[in-house]
């Protein structure tokens, strides 16, 4: 067993590839670049879903979301995702590695990949960090208040009219408490600057100060570039604003703020790079670097109101390149280099690929002729927000657009996105350019056939070829 390589599966959560220099970006990431020099940088990696949970289950199962069953759907959003994850008992890379003698260790700052989430049960040891510098609010008081109105004025007036003075006092106290904590948090940022690190330092500290039995399979999830990446988002409780922005067609987050967010994302990536550097230095000094298999990738990207796309900030729902085209950097044991095949790297190939390398097959088992990605609407259950009175009814029309089932297929340089709720082609591109459906009829028909085969018995309308 001593000759089995250690395996690192490092998820840089929410990292889109175009910010990295290896993919044409301009962020200063010397440590990832040094790793890339010893690695194979795959150019066409596609995440199987635009958000954390379905993709992470793909990493261990090798299956797409509808195949492994852990995903949001049009009805419920992601409400039951943790139950689904706890129930998952399909193909499992980590289980197979443990049977081979691997010690499986998980270190994560992601709120879905925590001890008790269901993901942790695959590992020998799993540690989670609560990264968010979030202000805790008494949600029961807030939830109660939403019954009386959608804004402060409406709530206060309604409570006065009903003579609910006890509730009014409770609401005032809650409002004042959270307002004061905002102010406190804001002062802290003013003094010390926005903390671009979330828990990467703690994860690297924990890893480098522990002594693990080998061979080791280490899964790490770093949340640095996941929102919030600016103080504004933290103070405004980003989730609510994200949804509002998503539904209002992007009227909430202005261009100035988006510039700040893009800048914050870059700063967060730089801060993360420094911590990755500490981790890699540790491996080099301990003599573990050379012989390890190190896979650095992302579970999905981030939409930042790109031109021509539905203008929202966040991830989920759509299948734009900034959401699913992700980095994939692989350092083979012995820093072995291969030349990637033509095609796409669906991240569903990760389990087979890792097992192949462990068995000594130094070849490109990750590239295939096609890659697919699927989304089933938002992972937030918008219906609940409407029913809770938090979101205005006028936005329900827009919400319909988000609660759609979508699939994308990449093949031979072309990309086709279909909205299977409406049976409509949303995107047909060669490379990054829209192309005519009429002039590329044969190609389009072939891609529609592929999608038809992929959807199988699922209720998903593929537009007719004729």
């Amino acid at each position: 067993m001593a000759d089995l390589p250690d395996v690192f599966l490092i998820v840089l959560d929410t990292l889109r590839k175009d910010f990295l220099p290896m993919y044409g970006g301009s962020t200063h990431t010397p440590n990832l670049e040094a790793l890339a020099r010893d690695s194979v940088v795959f150019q066409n990696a596609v995440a199987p879903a635009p958000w954390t949970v379905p993709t992470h289950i793909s990493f261990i199962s090798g299956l797409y979301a509808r195949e492994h069953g852990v995903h949001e759907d049009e009805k419920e959003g992601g409400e039951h995702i943790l139950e689904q994850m706890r129930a998952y008992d399909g193909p499992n890379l980590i289980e197979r590695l443990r049977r081979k003698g691997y010690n499986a260790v998980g270190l994560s700052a992601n709120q879905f990949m925590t001890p008790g989430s269901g993901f942790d049960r695959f590992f020998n040891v799993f540690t989670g960090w609560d990264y968010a510098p979030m202000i805790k609010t008494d949600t029961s008081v807030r939830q109660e208040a939403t019954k009386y109105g959608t804004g402060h004025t409406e709530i206060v007036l309604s409570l006065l009219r009903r003579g609910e003075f006890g509730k009014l006092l409770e609401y005032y106290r809650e409002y004042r408490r959270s307002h004061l904590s905002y102010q406190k948090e804001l002062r802290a940022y003013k003094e010390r600057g926005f903390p671009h690190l979330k828990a990467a330092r703690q994860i690297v500290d924990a890893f480098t100060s522990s002594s693990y039995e080998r061979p080791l399979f280490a899964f790490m999830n770093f949340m640095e570039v996941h929102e919030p990446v600016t103080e504004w988002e933290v103070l405004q409780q980003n989730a609510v604003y994200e949804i509002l922005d998503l539904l209002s067609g992007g009227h909430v987050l202005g261009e100035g703020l988006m510039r700040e967010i893009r800048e914050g994302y870059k700063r967060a990536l730089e801060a993360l790079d420094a911590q990755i550097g500490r981790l890699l230095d540790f491996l080099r000094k301990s003599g573990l670097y050379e012989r390890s298999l190190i896979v650095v990738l992302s579970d999905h990207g981030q939409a930042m109101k790109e031109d021509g796309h539905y203008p929202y900030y966040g991830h989920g729902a759509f299948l734009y390149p900034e959401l699913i085209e992700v980095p994939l950097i692989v350092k083979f044991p012995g820093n072995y280099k291969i030349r990637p095949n033509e095609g796409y790297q669906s991240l569903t190939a990760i389990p087979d690929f890792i097992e192949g390398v462990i068995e000594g097959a130094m070849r490109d088992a990750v590239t295939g002729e096609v890659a697919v990605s699927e989304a089933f609407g938002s992972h937030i259950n918008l219906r609940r927000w409407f029913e809770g009175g938090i979101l205005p009814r006028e936005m329900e029309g827009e919400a319909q657009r988000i609660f759609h089932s979508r699939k994308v297929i990449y093949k031979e340089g072309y990309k086709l996105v279909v909205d299977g709720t409406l049976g409509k082609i949303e995107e047909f591109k060669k490379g990054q350019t829209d192309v005519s459906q009429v002039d590329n009829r044969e190609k389009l028909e072939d891609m529609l056939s592929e999608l038809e085969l992929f959807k199988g018995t699922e209720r998903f309308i593929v537009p007719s070829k004729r």
Partner: protein
Amino acid sequence: MSNEAPAVNALSGRRIEGGLSLDAKVAIANVVIGDALSRFKRPFVVWSGGKDSMVVLHLVREEVKRRGISMPPALFVDHGMHFEETLQFVDKVSKDWGFQVVVARNDDALSHVKDGKICLQDLDEDNRREAREVGFNGDCFDYSLESVVGNHLLKTVAMKRAIRRYRIDALFVGIRWDENPARSWEVFISPRDDPPHVRVHPILPFTERNVWDYTLKNKLPIHPLYAKGYRSLDGKFDSKKVDDRPAWEQDLESTRERMGRAQDKEGFMETLRRYGYM
């Protein structure tokens, strides 16, 4: 002594369901098909244009109509030796019935046929490994379906690649208990692990006679070579006819279906089955 057919013919080793009516067998087939359609996400129907897979295709088609779902695609294994009539038949029926045909081909093996032979040194790693796995120790083999290695690479491996490529989780296959001892103990839904999927066998209890009765009763399209006397169709070099009467008019009960084909040889089918053939 009774004149009933024994459940398993002691001489041939074949299992014959001789008691059930055809209607009852069709009802069983519908249960099997319905169960598979409701549990699997990406079913395909293995279809050669031959009489058995034609019956399965029709049964599946009827069941999806009843359920109001779309017809699963057909998987056609192209070993490069099909009769021209087969290719035309497949094309016509799929167009008339409106379903998608996916071709499973071992391109690597078919592109390396030289002077009627295929040599391992020319093939990719996966094909070389597959050839060794079925016990082939030579350097080259004849381009034919008559050997274990030829049948395995040109048909089984082609199918395995298609299963992986299209992420198929269930394959409907028209094998029957009475065909061959190797198929006598097959079950209705049979899990396979290389690659992981299930084989769904709706017409196991059908006899050759049942297949023709069902075909004629439901007016299914019939591959033209059956009318010319062929009883069993596959590669054009190894499917031989022994009678000029249409297949359905021949004495099916006391002559052998695969007479003259290597698949009739003892143990051949069992070996193929073990390595993933139908």
